[in-house]
């Protein structure tokens, strides 16, 4: 097996709140291969964005990575790592809000070339040319004018293209896009997704695409990670997860997608809400909302298990397959 581009192994992230310290990410493990698009999906507060911020070491002051390892191209990433060298160079990030993600007082050109200035020895003119090139690549026109413009002079879609171009400019190996299309209207959203797909294919770089929109994930991702309450509950190739979801939560999410054939029927919703940070106990965290819950779900945390790259953490899977949970978990860990 080739060395994965990025690995996260058993990572915990804790929030230091007034009344104590709480785990917001709990044993997150995944890897991203070269030239792969991985989607992370889940409802608000499940830890999607937190995972992306952890990858970039951009966690807010009140939170902290308390356990686990991360590796990029085999290099261990920790507190001693020169993150300024990695950010914007080997890993780049695209944020959710194109309206606020840009500095209002700085021209587009200045902001675009900032990371080139940081990471390369290109001259001012070379940086400019490079910026023009990437801006055209993401489908922007009149780039010379745009280069001199300020963010407020651009529409939301244009700004998001700029933000994408900004992340691409240094040709990073891995791009993390945190809900890059959520703040945009549907037509613009489709255009931006198209940009993503074509650019990633051309560049052969990897992408982590975070979204709460399963439709979008299905559209562009190779593999998907489903998160719930700070844990990964299912992961696998997009076709597998979408056609044969294993975890009741994933099944629920898929049922809740509005489609044309469901027209006229009330839309399915998963009852209940994500348990708050303070009330996360040992067992399965989905248990209160699960229609298929069993006694052991309340006390035992299900291990992530499965085969052929499709894994889920649910006691139902042990029942169905008749596998020994411990054995399966061991196998699984070996795989990772």
């Amino acid at each position, binding site marked *: 097996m080739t060395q994965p581009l990025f690995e996260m192994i058993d990572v915990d992230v804790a929030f230091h709140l007034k009344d104590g310290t709480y785990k917001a990410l709990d044993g997150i493990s995944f890897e991203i291969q070269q030239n792969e698009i991985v989607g992370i999906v889940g409802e608000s507060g499940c830890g999607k964005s937190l995972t992306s911020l952890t990858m970039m070491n951009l966690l807010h002051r009140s939170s902290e990575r308390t356990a686990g390892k991360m590796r990029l191209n085999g290099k261990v990433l920790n507190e001693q790592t020169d993150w300024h060298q990695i950010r*914007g160079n080997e890993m780049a990030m695209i944020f959710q809000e194109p309206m606020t993600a840009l500095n209002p007082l700085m021209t587009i050109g200045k902001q675009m070339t900032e990371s080139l200035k940081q990471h390369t020895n290109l001259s001012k003119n070379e940086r400019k040319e490079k910026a023009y090139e990437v801006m055209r690549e993401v489908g922007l026109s009149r780039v010379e004018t745009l280069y001199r413009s300020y963010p407020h002079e651009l529409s939301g879609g244009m700004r998001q293209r700029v933000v994408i171009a900004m992340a691409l400019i240094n040709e990073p190996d891995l791009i993390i896009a945190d809900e890059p299309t959520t703040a945009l209207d549907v037509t613009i959203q489709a255009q931006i997704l198209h940009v993503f797909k074509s650019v990633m294919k051309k560049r052969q770089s990897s992408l982590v695409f975070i979204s709460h929109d399963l439709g979008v994930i299905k559209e562009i991702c190779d593999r998907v990670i489903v998160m719930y309450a700070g844990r990964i509950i299912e992961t696998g190739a997009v076709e597998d997860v979408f056609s044969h979801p294993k975890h009741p939560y994933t099944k629920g999410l898929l049922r809740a997608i509005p489609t044309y054939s469901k027209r006229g029927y009330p839309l399915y919703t998963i009852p209940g809400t994500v348990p708050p940070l303070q009330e996360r106990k040992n067992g399965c965290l989905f248990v209160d909302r699960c229609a298929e819950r069993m006694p052991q779900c309340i006390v035992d945390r299900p291990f992530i298990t499965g085969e052929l790259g499709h894994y889920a953490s649910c006691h139902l899977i042990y029942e169905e397959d008749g596998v020994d949970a411990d054995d399966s978990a061991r196998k699984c860990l070996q795989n990772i």
Partner: protein
Amino acid sequence: MKRLTYKLLSSILTLFIVTLLIFFMFQVLPGNPAQIILGIDADEAQIKQLEQKLGLDEPLTTRYMQWVQGIFTGDLGESLKYQMPVIDVLKQRVPVTLALALSSLVLTALLAIPLGIFIAMKQDKWYAFVLNLFTQLGIAIPSFWFGFLLIYLFGVKLGWFPTFGYTAWSENPMQAIRSFILPSVAIAVSNIAVVVRYLRNTILDQTTMDYVRTAKSKGVKDHQVMSRHIVRNAFIPVLTIMGMIVADTIAGSIIIENVFALPGLGSLLIQSITSRDFPLIQALVSYIAIFVIVINIVIDLLYRIIDPRIKKKG
């Protein structure tokens, strides 16, 4: 451009209202100037004669027009106390106040901006906490008290600076600078405290903004994120405070000039009021008002330089 035109028009309107208020306030004040000049022994004829000479017998509107014209041409009549043209009295005093205001402003800018940034960057450290406490004190302590303290410490005890009075620049530049240091510091202290606190808070507000995270995600170093991104954004609201401080400095100098016995506009204003020198008071108040209005326009222009969003909104 629309915004600038609007600003100018509203400034002219403000100026009109201010002059109107100043002029008519002195009309309704009890006491006839001619009577005051001549003393209580003067007879009716003498008063009439002087009124005619001073132009007091003309209708109000004509006198108002003449007076407003005078503000711009510099012909503001004679000071009753000094027996010389008001404009000449002002000419003697303006340099003192201007020098005092300018030096205290420079002091404020030079100290407050780096200090504010420093405290914001080191907000978790104990010394940032202590400095923050000091700014609270700086705001609470009145400047005249601070003036006395400075006179006592550096003038009386240590003898480093003159305790009062003023040496003209033309006489002895070194001595002139020395005589300005203590009063400038006295005015600057509370201003520094205000700016530091304000700048610290706006910087901390900006630190959590999305664009800051974007900059960090590009690999920009922390100090560059601060200097290139945060400080410029944090400076927009601080500019408003700075404008208010400039206007305040003139008011502040009224007290401080008296504490340090400096012959500036501030002490002149007090003297002119106690001696009921109406032409002088009117001129002083009008010019101070004009100064504040001009500062407002300047601040507005500075906004346009810093913030590109204003130009487009027009």
